[in-house]
């Protein structure tokens, strides 16, 4: 568990992929209780993170100018 990516750095896609793999691991293998609980808690945090990302998501729209610059679109 030492190399867990901090949640705030994870995109929805990454967090959701890890969440799915954790659910898979928990359902498949017999983990020692402490490891399984750690996985479970990580899964809970990932699910919450994903939910938060969706709730806060705001479409980011930029405009590509003729000289190849990207700038926020009104």
């Amino acid at each position: 568990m030492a190399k867990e990516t901090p949640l705030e750095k994870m995109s929805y896609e990454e967090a959701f992929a890890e969440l799915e793999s954790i659910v898979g691991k928990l359902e498949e293998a017999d983990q020692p209780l402490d490891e399984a609980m750690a996985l479970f808690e990580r899964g809970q945090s990932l699910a919450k993170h994903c939910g938060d990302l969706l709730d806060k998501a705001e479409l980011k729209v930029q405009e590509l100018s003729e000289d190849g610059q990207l700038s926020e679109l009104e």
Partner: protein
Amino acid sequence: MEQLSFFQSPDTALSVSELTRHVRTLLESDELLGDVWVQGEVSNFSRPKSGHIYFTLKDDQASLRCVMWRGMADKQTYLPQDGEAVEAHGGVSVYEAGGQYQLYADRIRPAGEGALYQEFLRLKEKLEGEGLFDAERKRPIPAWPGRIGIVTSPTGAALRDMLNTLRRRFPLAEVALAPASVQGEAAPGEIMAALEDLNEIFKPDVILLGRGGGSIEDLWAFNDEGVARAVAASAAPVVSGVGHETDFTIADFTADLRAPTPTAAAELATPDQTELREELTRNRLDLVQWLQSALGGFGRSLEAAVQRLAMNSPLQRVRRDRQRLDDHARRTERAVRHRADLLKAGLDGLGQRLAALSPQGVLGRGYAFVSQADGTAVRSAAQVKTGDPLDVRVADGEFGVEVTGENKKV
């Protein structure tokens, strides 16, 4: 004409109605005039309250009155103005009251559209022949389009529709608009440049190419060969959404996915956050279910372990030992008591035997103890003579007696 010659006498002149009806019959029975496209410039265009359309088509040498009934007029996507060159389709007949032949039009389109359509078919056939429409060429639209490029007019309704759809369905995306005119002479070049710039600079996961509905001329930029090729060559897969559902453009054929409208293009290119949330909820439930069953499982093995532990605990041993001690104690006690009982029984026997041996016991059986005045026990008849006082002791007391006879041996 034969019919006419039959009525040549002035007495049997035709009425105007009869003649007009005859002309009408002639015109209406003509194969060409019944189903014809006519090209000309529009003048005297009018649409009174009745909803019917009246106009005149003319060229430099002739003119033709035209009418389109309201039912047909309502179905047209395009209606001309005076001075425009158009092509009208319909059948020629006679307006009897006016004594005029005219075109009863059922379709009208800008002139040149027919030529455009020929060009459309030619280009379509050409690119199809090159394999640009082949299904194997189509790339899948990525399941997670984190970066979405849009090529459309910055002022059109298509952009607004696409952005609204993206906001509603997939607000996690990053969008870049590469603005381009979507109609007019400059449009094809701008669309091609926009596709190229997006791919080069923004590197989108998918590109939406959109334009709202319009006439076939309005949509013509999307039938441009250069645009069609640029769509096919785009590094990112392209979803086209041009015009209305019934409009097909060459760009639609070379796109990786054709959507009927700009809104539909945005929908087809993105996952819906409603589904994402459902997916998330499913995973959350799976986690909780795992926890419950895991805790249940761990709980059961814990219970079993506690039971085994309890069975092997020192306390249990003490209890067992104590029981064994109790057993010992009970057995010892029983043994002791038994011995005691035996002893007691023995003692009782001894006592009885002892009692039987005591003088008192002998006296009890009716014997008497006889002693002389000085207390000496009388054991022999020779010890006494007549007149001697003696003491007699029986079981419950004593009394004195005198010897009355002597020396009689028993």
